[in-house]
Structures are given as structure tokens and as C-alpha cells.
């Protein structure tokens, strides 16, 4: 039950929205998608779902392209949230689950369970338009996983939620993964991807600029950070060979280096300057990788 995307390309006229994207998500894995607005995340998701046909390339789920026959196995949370505003929550969730071939009685039971879990059981008979945006989003997430799909595609599942609700949704998604579901999601928050995902892809203008397991991505980035805390001025150290970048912080400085031998030199040199309060070699954050690869900060 793995999802395989091979050289998928989507062109709209002269514009190439997705350019030769390849990735594999094994069953039970969570794959994170990063990219600025317009990078091609939503188009990629729509191609995976079969809503758009790739101009070139092949996408397979379980060995076959996804068609409407696989509809019961797939859950989708679109980036643009949408529910019937005038329909009651419970009625609506049951209807959407029925469209994915879930029997009505089962759907009813599951709706109750999920509303309880998200602490909103009292909204069952309210109209969707009466709910706050955050609560609508919970309903939207329930709609995507109510029918117990084995492939879950979540486009920006956490945007616009407060931290408490983010944790609630995160734990629900993690539980889903534990039950064996394959999950692909995009997020606005790099820390969410770092926390939840095994693998990730960074998309820029339709191309995957970085992809693979997060550990591997960080290692192959070839750069590490050295954080030094001391009172003396450290600016003279940025002339040491191998220091790529130097940032002054309020209690010291942050050096970006190419390999660990440079860290050794930094330690020696800084000790000559005075008393050292803190010295650490840190892995690069996804944020830094993103900036380095895409050339701008992540929104």
C-alpha cells in the first residue's frame, strides 16, 4: 500500500505548475510537503487524487492510478476549506462519509466518536456557518478521516488553529498513522513537518529541490551550526576558513560551518578570547535549509 509518484509533470498552457516530481511514500509513513505559495503543492495533491491528470508521468497507489473506485480508501482535506454552510454538522458528515461508501449507521457512530474526541459533541445539530473557523476546521478534518481511509492527504491541516487545537489534531493524525494509514500533508509550519514526518519534500516553482528522510536531508545539507555564548566580541572569528555565515546574537554568536573540523578551530579560537559560557554544535533547522534552497524565508 505505497504511494508512488514518478516524474509527474503538470502544465497549464505554457505554465509548468509541477515539474518532474518523484517521490515514494511507504505504508504507514507520513510525508511532509513544504513550499511557498504557488510552489505546486495543491496541484500535486490534485494529481495524486486524480482530480487533475498529469501532463506527463505516472502516479500509483497500491500499484494502480487512483480512480473513483478507490474513493472509499482515500481521505482529503483541501487547502480551501469547504462545507455546506447551511447544513447541520452531523447530517453533513454522514452525507460526506456516505459519498465515500461508508454505511450510514457506521458513519453515525464514528461522527459521535470524533466529535467527542475533538470536544465538540454539542455542535452535532448546529449549522456549520454558526461555528467558529477553528471548529469548522475540526469538522473538516473529521470529514476527511471519518470513513477510515488508508491514504490521507491533508493540505495545510493546521493553518489558522490555536496551539491547543493544533496539538489535538496532531495527536489524532498520529493515531491514524499508527493504525497503518499512509499520510501526505503540507504545512505552513516547518516545525510541524520536523516533528511529525519521516520524509519530506521541498517544492520550489514546481520542482522538488530537497527530498528524502529528514535526517538524511539535514546531513546532506553539509552545513552545521555552532552556537557560542560569551561576552567578548566574536566578529573576528568569521574570517576562519570554513565559516559560511556569521550572525551576532544577543548573548554571543551563531556560525554556519561546512564540517566539524571547523567547529574544532572555532572552539580553540574562541577560548583564546575569554571565558566560554556555552558551546554547541547544532543540526541545521529545516528553516535554514529552506532558505538556502528556495532563496527566501518560508511564509
Amino acid at each position, binding site marked *: 500500500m505505497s504511494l508512488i509518484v514518478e516524474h509527474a509533470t503538470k502544465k497549464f498552457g505554457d505554465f509548468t505548475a509541477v515539474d518532474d516530481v518523484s517521490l515514494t511514500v511507504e505504508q504507514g509513513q507520513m510525508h511532509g510537503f513544504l513550499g511557498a505559495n504557488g510552489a505546486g503543492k495543491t496541484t500535486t495533491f490534485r494529481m495524486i487524487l486524480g482530480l487533475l491528470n498529469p501532463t506527463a508521468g505516472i502516479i500509483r497507489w497500491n500499484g494502480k492510478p487512483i480512480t473513483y473506485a478507490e474513493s472509499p480508501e482515500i481521505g482529503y482535506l483541501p487547502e480551501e476549506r469547504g*462545507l455546506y454552510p447551511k447544513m447541520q454538522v452531523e447530517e453533513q458528515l454522514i452525507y460526506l462519509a456516505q459519498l465515500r461508501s461508508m454505511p450510514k449507521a457506521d458513519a453515525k457512530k464514528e461522527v459521535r466518536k470524533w466529535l467527542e474526541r475533538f470536544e465538540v459533541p454539542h455542535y452535532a445539530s448546529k449549522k456549520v456557518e454558526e461555528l467558529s473557523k477553528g471548529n469548522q476546521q475540526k469538522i473538516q478534518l473529521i470529514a476527511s478521516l471519518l470513513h477510515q481511509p488508508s491514504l490521507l492527504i491533508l493540505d495545510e491541516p493546521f493553518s489558522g488553529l490555536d496551539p491547543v487545537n493544533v496539538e489535538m489534531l496532531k495527536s489524532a493524525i498520529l493515531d491514524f498513522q499508527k493504525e497503518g494509514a499512509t499520510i501526505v500533508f503540507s504545512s505552513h509550519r516547518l516545525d510541524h513537518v520536523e516533528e511529525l514526518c519521516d520524509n519530506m519534500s521541498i517544492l520550489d516553482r514546481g520542482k522538488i529541490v530537497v527530498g528524502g528522510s529528514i535526517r538524511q536531508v539535514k546531513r546532506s545539507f553539509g552545513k552545521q551550526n555552532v552556537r557560542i555564548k560569551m561576552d567578548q566580541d566574536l566578529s573576528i572569528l568569521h574570517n576562519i576558513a570554513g565559516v559560511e555565515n556569521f550572525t551576532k546574537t544577543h548573548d554571543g554568536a551563531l556560525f554556519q560551518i561546512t564540517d566539524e573540523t571547523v567547529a574544532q578551530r572555532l572552539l580553540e579560537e574562541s577560548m583564546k578570547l575569554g571565558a566560554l559560557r556555552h558551546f554547541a554544535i547544532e543540526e541545521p533547522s529545516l528553516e535554514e535549509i529552506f532558505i538556502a534552497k528556495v532563496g527566501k524565508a518560508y511564509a
Partner: protein
Amino acid sequence: MHSFWIIFKQAFMTKAKTKSFIITTVIVAAAFFLMANLPNIIEAFQGSEEEENVLHVMDESGDLTEALQQQLKAAGSDIQAMPTDLTEEELKEGITDGSIEAYLVLEQNEQLSARYVSESANEMNSGADIEQAVQSLQTALTAETMGLDAAEVSQLFLPAAFEREAVSESSKSQEELSQARGLVYILIMLIYIAVIYYPNMIAMEVANEKSSRVMEILISSVSPVKHMFAKIAGIGTLGILQMLVFGLSGYVAIKTAGTDLSEGAFSVFGFSDVKISTFLFAVLFFLLGYFLYAVLAALLGSLVSRTEDVQQLMLPMMFLIIIASFIAFSGIGVPEAGFVTVSSFIPFFAPLVMFLRVGMLDIPLWEPLLSIAIMLATIGILGWFGARVYRGGVLMYGSSQSLKDIRKAIRLGENK
């Protein structure tokens, strides 16, 4: 197939439950009862009708009034000629204060002379009736003085047989035509309203689902084509049901009202000689017209991002329906005109115009069948084309809302 029925049920139930739908249905049904009882109601308001038709006759000889009454009766008039004792002054006063409608001064000299006095010149429209009756009375009196007997007199009054007959074989006789006209008029009206009302509902539904962005979830669950046709079928069934309620309430209203619809105010509608085939064709053309325009409406609805833009995009389609209705309504008087015949084979006009021809004329069966076949083919092509537009259209969000978007939508939904 399962999900088809779920969408079908959903489309049907949500609309059937809305207040506006229930209220419209009730109001129209109530209007039928009102119409069926109209003659009773008119009668109730004009209870003293008979008195108003009294004609006071000043007749010095005294025996002319009765002879006049006989002439009036023979002519089928319900005017009561009554001898009066009042003076002309008093009669004039009576007219001014409204207690008397009109009076007649009859004098017999060499010939009969009569003076008809009423409040206004067009009062009662009976002036002509009375003139006719006086004329006849004069003839009868003259015949009497000439010594003719009763049999000879009645021969003298024998009316000439005058009948209109049309030469063309397909044309119905004048009598049949006027009988069919009313019913056909009403049924065309119903089809016209139905092909505007229900397809509009579909376009609004689709636009609503798009603007609330629930569409992307729907079409990731169910194929857009299935979604579109399930919706069309659901609302179509709702339309049939509503029409059935209208038809049934109309029927019950007529039966319970106890008024004879073949006479009086209703005679123009020609309910007395209704052919079942006219109704069957009405249902058939309603369904075909509905599907034709519903597919078009779904296609157009899928192109807009906001419900506010629906009407603008529906305008060309509305024009088609309005042109069809122009042809149909102006063709009622001249169902054999060339433009009616030609447009009855144009798929977008056929639901109204071909029905008009079927209802008004005795045309060979192959003509409506050909027209139906053309419509079915058009529905097929539109369905195929509409499904392609719909596939892409529902994913398209943008500011430009024009028919040019159709090309964009097709490209977006394309397979390669």
C-alpha cells in the same frame, strides 16, 4: 451507483425541504382552486344579475312587449322585457340613480319605431341585441299584415348555415383549433416556466457548492459527471413531483368546484375536448426541455466562483428560452407559419414550439419523433460536452466570468 442515489436523494430532499419550495407549491395549488371557483365567486358578487337585465318597455299598444320578449328569447338573449307604468321622466330618473339599467320606448305607426335609453352608450352590450329583436319584430309584424301564416314566417327567419373550413389537411377545423388553443397555451406556459425555474435551481446549486468550496471534497469522492447527473436527476424528479401536485390539485379543484369548465369563462381554454396525447406530449417535452437546459445550466454554473455571477452567465441561456417562448406564443395564432415549422426542429426551441405544433395541428407522427430525436442527440452531445467543462470548471476559481472560460475549463479537465 450507490453514491448516485445518495447525491440524488440529497439534491431532492434539501430542495424539497426549503420554505420557498413549499410555499410556492402551496400558493400555486391554491391559485388553481381559486381559478376553478372563479365563476362561482363572480356569481356570488353579482347575485342580482337577473334584475339588472330587466328592460323596461314603454309600450302604448300593450301587446308589443310580449312579442318583443319572444324575439329576445328566440335570439338567445337573457334580457327580460317588462311593460312599465312609469312615465318617461320617472324612468330617466331611475337610470340616473341606478335603479334602472335601460328602457325602451316602442311605438307602432306605419312601421315600428324604438328608442333605447341607457346610462351610457355601451351599457349592457345589449343595445345590439335589442335592435336585432326590434328588427325581427318589425319583420314579423309586416309578415302578419301581408297575411303569411306561422309556418311561412318561421321559414322567413331560417338562418343561413355559415361554417368556416380550412383547406389544409394538417389544419384542424376552426372549432377544434380554438378548443385546443387554450389548453396548449396553458401547457406551453407551464413548460416555459419549468425550463426556466428548475435549470436555474441547478445552476444555483452548483455555484453554491463551488462558492462554499465543498465542491472539491465532493468531486474527490465522486466523479463530477456522476455528481452532475445525479443532481440533474434529483431536481428533475422534484420538478415532476411539483408539476404532479399542480396537476392533481387542478384536477381536484375542478371536480370539487362543480363549475362546468366547458362553458362560460372557461370555454376559451377548451377543456371540453381534451386529448390525452396532448398531455403525454406535454410531459415528454417538459422532460426533454428540462434535461436540455439543465445540462446547460450545470455547465454554466460550474464556471462561476460566486453565486452572484450565476445570473450573468445564464443570460445567453435565458435568451434562448425567451426566444423559444416568443416563437411559441406568437405561433399560437399561426401554427402553420414557416418560422414555427422550422424552429420546431431546432433543439433549443423544440420543447415549446414542437409541442405547440403537436397540440394545434394534426401533423404526421414522424415530425415530433424527429424533433425528439434531435433533442435527445443534443442532450447527449451537451451531456458529454458539459461533463468535460464541469470536470475542469469546478476546480477553476478566478475573477473573469465569461463564456471564454469554457475553453479553460475543458483544458483543465482534460485527460492528457
